[in-house]
């Protein structure tokens, strides 16, 4: 086994284990911390694919900013294992069905992609480097890129509008 393979298996195991721990922990703060670990493992995978920019942005945006906001909310609402509301049986059932069907869709989508036949570009790929990514974003996908920025702008304007005193 090469180093890359060892790292791949280690990171995969870490990601799955942390994801499971995230779902099963009773304490929401622990859940958030396990989720951060998942993000780290995924960033590690990005680095194995030589997509350093994606890896680091994943860390800054998801692990850094969004998870801190999650922690904010959880800490301020004083949610912990003791105050967790007991949900009734039907809610649990509905949740299981909903997430099960989502998983089904994801598995089906994965089966149909070409990814399996093509295999991953390892450390040789350069699509994840900043210069390549920038070129692709601003040429091939420029419409989608600009549209998503407009979406963010509208979200920002909405937030400002809600936050403004009359």
């Amino acid at each position, binding site marked *: 086994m*090469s180093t890359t393979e060892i790292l791949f298996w280690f990171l995969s195991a870490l990601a799955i284990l942390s994801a499971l721990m995230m779902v099963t922990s009773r304490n929401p703060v622990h859940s958030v911390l396990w989720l951060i670990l998942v993000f780290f493992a995924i960033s590690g995978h990005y680095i194995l694919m030589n997509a350093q920019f994606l890896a680091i942005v994943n860390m*800054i945006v998801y692990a850094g900013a969004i998870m801190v906001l999650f922690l904010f909310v959880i800490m301020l609402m004083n949610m912990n294992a003791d105050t967790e509301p007991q949900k009734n049986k039907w809610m649990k059932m509905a949740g299981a069905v909903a997430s099960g069907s989502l998983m089904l869709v994801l598995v089906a989508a994965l089966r149909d992609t070409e990814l399996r036949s093509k295999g991953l570009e390892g450390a040789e790929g350069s699509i994840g*480097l900043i210069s390549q990514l920038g070129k692709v974003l601003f040429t091939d996908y420029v419409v989608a890129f600009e549209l998503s920025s407009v979406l963010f702008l509208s979200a920002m304007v909405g937030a400002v509008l809600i936050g403004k005193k009359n």
Partner: protein
Amino acid sequence: MHLLSVDMTIFLEKLTMIAIVVFALLGIALYTTLAERKVAGVMQDRHGPNRAGPFGLLQPLADGLKLFFKEEIIPLSSNRVLFILGPFIAMFTALITSAVIPWGSSLELFGRKVDLTIADPNIGVLYVFAVVSIGVFGIMIGGWASNNKFSLLAAIRGASQIISYELAMGLSLIALLMITGTMSLGEIVKAQMNGAWGGFLGWNVFVQPLGFLIFLVCVFAECNRTPFDLPEAESELNMGYHQEYSSLKLGFFLFSEYINMIVSSAVMATLFFGGYDIPFVNETHLGETLGNNLVAILGVLMLLAKIVFFLFLFMWVRWTIPRFRYDQLMELGWKKLIPLALFNMLITGIVILLFDK
């Protein structure tokens, strides 16, 4: 020397570098605590600590020993695991930021070219940002796990402060990156060495003065230093997020602040003040007469001198400017620095478009 298809000599080389950098950081941080007290003293017409050893040089050791032998207290109602994890994360993130800083050019040892950088990835600047944003968790987890109102408030203050100022910091750097065209810190330093007057005029601070000012203010906020030391405001929050901590865990928190200071000084020196570039001296010419190794070591010393200057600036500001109020802090960050950084970006873009074909 191959194991798992990795060249073990490189591995050993990097390991030595890491060990040297970490121990140097810890050593400098140790003496920065003394320097802080000395600077505070002389600025207030006092002497500062001068009893332990000559000029108080043994004071940091005495302080460290004292912290080490204090009783380790973990509050009963705290979250034990997270309580211990908090200072660990703070210390860890403070230390690993140093990985991408180019400490010098390269040495020739035993017929090998040894780069004086632990790693120089093409996303060096972003790496610094990522680690800083992870560093918030040390404060947040530590503050929350203490199960103390003051700690929680301080933790939330600290986290929101760091997130807010990270935005302005990033925007101020984008203008710089537009000029340099690379995110690798090593490349940024090399580009600055080509300026006139032995590289002095090539320093980015002359190209991006406004960007540097914004970056400087943001660095003060990121390090939780006065005038932005709201997370540890003694007069409002007792001691801030490390109120329940004692012994070595408290030491870790306090130490990580100083290491953060050193590393951000190094980042500032690297990005805006030419890193290991010696001003008014052409390194390649000097290398021919003195030998490349000597010039590389001089470069490292030059970078250290710049770091010491910035550390002094940190302390100087701390003992001069009073603390901001929380709303003032947020206003400065969101309403002043971010528009200013955007403006700086716009100007830089226009100048590049018009003059740099």
